[in-house]
């Protein structure tokens, strides 16, 4: 079988090699690990970090914060988003609040949260405030993009509201909602890491990022960043897969 250069897997691997190569040459050119460590140095630190005894606790604690914030945001965002999507008056009431949260710089929210809450709750609070608007907006959009003729048909045939929600609105809203959930989870990992850097809870990737910055251990900083990226990618992938399984027959077929 012939292997094509346009094969997405091959081009993907080539892409990674290209950018890592560029990083390597840039690090060689700069020749100052404090500014930019070489990929091999980062890999060495990564291997050391991966062998550390506390790593599972640190990863679990940070991931738990992300998942808690994500679960709360999903409950709030989907619940309120559905109600607001169905009732424009309610949507108008919530819109200013959601727009305000979206426009507020994440750093302001983190600092306020540090003033208000204990250090271990700051990342969760910040995560909720950052993820909720994305899920709310995608739910509202999804509900409102449902075919009104199908809703009219279901109402004329006196189908119960709960059944209409389940069989008409949910499949109509799913594409937008899925996209919103996945991007909210990705954002959750970034925001919570940032929040941990400033609030410094015990057992947190962000706290270790902070230490790496303070002690100018740039290779460690990049290695922890790679760990966050990997965690985020794994959980986004898991979420996409579970949503696909859960909604296999529920999505509107594009054909």
């Amino acid at each position, binding site marked *: 079988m012939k292997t094509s250069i346009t094969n997405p897997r091959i081009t993907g691997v080539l892409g990674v090699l290209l950018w890592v190569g560029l990083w390597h040459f840039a690090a060689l050119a700069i020749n100052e690990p404090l500014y930019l460590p070489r990929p091999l140095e980062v890999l060495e630190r990564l291997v050391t970090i991966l062998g550390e005894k506390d790593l599972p606790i640190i990863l679990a604690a940070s991931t738990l914060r992300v998942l808690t914030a994500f679960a709360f945001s999903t409950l709030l965002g989907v619940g309120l988003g559905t109600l607001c999507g169905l009732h424009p008056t309610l949507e108008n009431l919530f819109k200013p609040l959601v727009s305000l949260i979206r426009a507020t710089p994440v750093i302001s929210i983190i600092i306020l949260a540090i003033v208000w809450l204990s250090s271990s709750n700051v990342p969760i609070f910040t995560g909720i405030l950052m993820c909720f608007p994305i899920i709310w907006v995608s739910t509202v959009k999804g509900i409102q993009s449902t075919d009104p003729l199908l809703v009219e048909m279901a109402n004329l045939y006196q*189908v119960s509201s709960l059944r209409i929600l389940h069989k008409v609105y949910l499949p109509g809203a799913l594409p937008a909602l899925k996209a919103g959930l996945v991007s909210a989870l990705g954002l959750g990992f970034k925001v919570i890491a940032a929040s941990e850097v400033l609030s410094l809870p015990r057992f947190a990737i962000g706290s270790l990022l902070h230490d790496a910055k303070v002690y100018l251990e740039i290779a460690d900083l990049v290695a922890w960043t790679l760990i966050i990226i990997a965690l985020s990618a794994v959980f986004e992938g898991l979420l996409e897969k579970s949503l696909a399984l859960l909604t296999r027959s529920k999505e509107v*077929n594009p054909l």
Partner: protein
Amino acid sequence: MICLKNINLAYDDTPIFEDFNLSLNHNEISGILGASGIGKTTLINIIAGITPVQKGTVHGLDHQELSYIFQEPRLLPTETVYDNLSFVLHKHYPDPRKRREVILRNLDLVGLLDALNRYPFELSGGMKQRLSIARAFAFPSRVLIMDEPFKGLDVKLKSTVMEAFKRSYQAMHKTVVFVTHDLDEVLDLSDRVFVLGSRPAKVLATEVILREPGHRTPLENMDKKRASLLKSLL
């Protein structure tokens, strides 16, 4: 009898109906014929209670007892043929066995028994409209409202879909009210025809097309009736 009395309705000061009256018999197929844009769909929406009127009343109709065949099939894209019917029947047939029996009987009448587990995107345009006919007949209604149900179908498909309608109608008589701009459809299906014309809309002519009881074959003078209806349309 379904009676529309002194119906008044205007959109942006343009009167659509002004003191409009119409009486439709139960257990008949009443065809309402009229040119496009005359207000046929509005009239059927008034009968169905979808469009509220500014003045006038509609008597002799319980809105809980209506089923519909729309211009477009309006099927749930994520549900199978079977589940599309089950969706509207849940409340009225809570017993799954009874519900299944009703669904299978109606799908059989429209020739979709083999397509039970298929999704709407796997069906042709004609099959989709046959499914919407099965849904309307399966629903325990006394009155069936149809808004140009054969519009947009080519000649061959239209004939298949009309046959499916006739089979379902013969099996389960309902009061049928339908609007169309197609003279042939009206002559083929109706027991009584009302020709709607001018604006504000008026009933210009009423024609009774008699058929043998239990059969859909017209008795006599169809050519004359066609000519008379055509004349009133022009």
